């Protein structure tokens, strides 16, 4: 056996030796005029293309760069690695290749840098293909409207701000408010949902990324997830290409007709990295010192999220970009840009967060422009009423602060609303299955929770979920598979919930 495998290896090497062809090619070369801050100006290179790879030859091996500026008699490039060995007058060769990343099925479960090199200490990616980092988004003919849901497993989002496959939904909020938590919970909830996930960390602390990877591993989510990391200590050029590289990896699965979820965490740092590069390349600064094409920077990235029609494979890329605001200022440059590009936003509010409403989703300011077409029928039925109740509660709660004498109807609505707010609270790393969500919402909007004290709601919900799992599993199965809840199911569910309530002693009589 051992001999056999040895022979096999020798045979393979022989094959490669006989296959080896050395080609002598005429190449375009230039000389370094200026280098510093991760930027190089190169003279010569009269045939260089935009975003072509350059090889800087140094005494300690080659460093690669990408062309970003084409000037009259020089070329501006960013370095994709450590540039301290590059000297003025050093030789630069144009490689006649646009920047590409290796893609393939074995990127799942890996932690990679934006160039596809492993960061997890495992072997190199076996590249099935190379995909260009920059690519024009799919056109009108190939697309289809979004009609399938992404189950985030977060009650507040799945009910009120549904996200569909192929949608771009922005997660926006201040620092330390649970933006990443929503993204990670969503990834965890994709288990068994036929979805590949790509998490792109841009300018994050390596410790935070390590924590996320550990959490994903623990939840068994790394089997279908790729993490692309351009850390805080990486050069701005890597931060700049990271989301495009992640998207190229997603496009590999898209082309195979699969559904992909990609998270860009976060695009404010991406814009900052691009600003750094642009200013160093001496492009004129505009508002907040960002260059003129920051809008295009993000629009061309997010346009690559799509839902293709069945003639073109029927795959989808769902993008969840994250934007960090400064002190809740959503009218800054980058947040307004990305809000206008995406199909809706999930707005996280500090006040809600500190009141203990976590996830701190502000249901009033958050929208999903795709709407209920990205919900299953059963969810549509309950969520419509939920949204109405929530809106009424918000209005009344503000109004009720002034008067104490309220009529019966208003009081009831307020009580229901309080319970609703309680129901939307959810712990981190505990996404909930859609069928269970429907059953919980069902019991709320039908008044079955009105007799539960507000401070006991979460306890009640926990118990109820277990009880339904044990006693009404056929209803759950129906919701999951047929995606509707008929009258028979509703009756049965009502009965089961009432049975459960009979076992409790803290109900309001």
């Amino acid at each position: 056996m051992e001999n056999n495998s040895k022979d096999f290896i020798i045979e393979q090497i022989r094959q490669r030796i006989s296959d080896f062809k050395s080609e002598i090619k005429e190449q375009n070369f230039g000389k370094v005029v200026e280098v510093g801050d991760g930027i190089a100006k190169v003279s010569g290179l009269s045939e260089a293309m935009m975003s072509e790879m350059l090889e800087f030859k140094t005494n300690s091996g080659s460093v690669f760069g990408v062309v970003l500026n084409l000037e009259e008699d020089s070329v501006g490039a960013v370095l994709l690695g450590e540039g301290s060995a590059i000297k003025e007058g050093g030789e630069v060769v144009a490689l006649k290749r646009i920047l590409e990343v290796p893609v393939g099925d074995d990127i799942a479960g890996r932690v990679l840098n934006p160039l596809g090199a492993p960061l997890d200490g495992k072997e190199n990616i076996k590249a099935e293909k190379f995909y260009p980092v920059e690519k024009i988004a799919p056109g009108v003919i190939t697309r289809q409207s979004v009609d399938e849901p992404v189950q985030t497993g977060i009650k507040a989002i799945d009910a009120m701000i549904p996200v569909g496959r192929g949608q771009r939904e922005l997660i926006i909020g201040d620092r330390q408010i649970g933006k990443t938590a929503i993204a990670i919970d969503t990834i965890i909830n994709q288990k068994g949902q036929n979805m590949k996930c790509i998490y792109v960390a841009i300018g994050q602390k390596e410790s935070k990324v390590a924590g996320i990877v550990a959490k994903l591993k623990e939840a068994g989510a790394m089997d279908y997830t790729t993490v692309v990391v351009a850390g805080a200590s990486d050069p701005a050029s890597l931060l700049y290409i990271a989301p495009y590289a992640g998207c190229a990896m997603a496009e590999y699965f898209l082309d195979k007709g699969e559904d992909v979820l990609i998270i860009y965490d976060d695009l404010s740092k991406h814009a900052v990295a691009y600003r750094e590069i642009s200013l160093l390349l001496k492009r004129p600064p505009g508002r907040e010192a960002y260059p003129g094409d920051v809008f295009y920077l993000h629009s061309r990235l997010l346009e690559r999220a799509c839902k293709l029609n069945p003639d073109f494979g029927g795959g989808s890329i769902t993008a969840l970009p994250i934007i960090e605001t400064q002190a809740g200022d959503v009218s800054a440059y980058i947040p307004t840009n990305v809000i206008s590009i995406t199909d809706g936003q999930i707005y996280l509010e500090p006040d809600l967060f500190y009141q203990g409403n976590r996830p701190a989703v502000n249901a009033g300011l958050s929208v999903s422009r795709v709407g209920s077409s990205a919900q299953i029928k059963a969810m549509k039925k309950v969520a419509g009423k939920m949204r109405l109740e929530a809106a009424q509660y918000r209005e009344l709660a503000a109004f009720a602060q002034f008067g104490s004498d309220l009529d019966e109807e208003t009081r009831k609505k307020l009580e229901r609303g309080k319970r609703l707010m309680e129901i939307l609270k959810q712990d981190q790393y505990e996404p909930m299955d859609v069928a269970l969500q429907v059953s919980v919402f069902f019991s709320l909007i039908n008044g079955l929770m009105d007799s539960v004290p507000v401070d006991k709601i979460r306890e009640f919900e926990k118990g109820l979920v277990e009880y339904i799992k044990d006693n009404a599993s056929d209803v759950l199965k129906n919701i999951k598979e047929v995606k509707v809840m008929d009258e028979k199911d509703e009756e049965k569910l009502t009965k089961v919930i009432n049975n459960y309530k009979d076992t409790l002693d803290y109900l309001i009589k």
Partner: protein
Amino acid sequence: MKIKAKQYAQALFLETRDKKGDDLLKTLDKFFEVLKVDNNLSQLEKIVFYFNNLWNKEYSLVEAEITCSRFLENDLRSDVVSYLKKISQAENIEIKEKEDKKVIGGFVLKYGDKIIDASIKNKINSFKNSLLN
């Protein structure tokens, strides 16, 4: 108005094109005087660079450099020059030779901003890369 190095080079080239001997030296003196007045002497290096480009273009001249592990014999050199004339479509070739043991064998030929690397060193490197990947 800021005058660019390229514009100085063009002016100088046009001014000196048909001049010889003392006339040429006088023109050069005047040119430096102009640079001094304009406070642009620091641009000199760039001006020379652009001037060379203009000169080479006008007289159809290509500067080339060939690096080998040992110096070329005469008939081989004339072969290289005629080859260069063919690929660069220039009438005059100015070739420099360099000896470098590191290329092991073959040659590295540079002309204009093109490079033809036919050295054994390059072949070994690409062979190494093809075995590693």
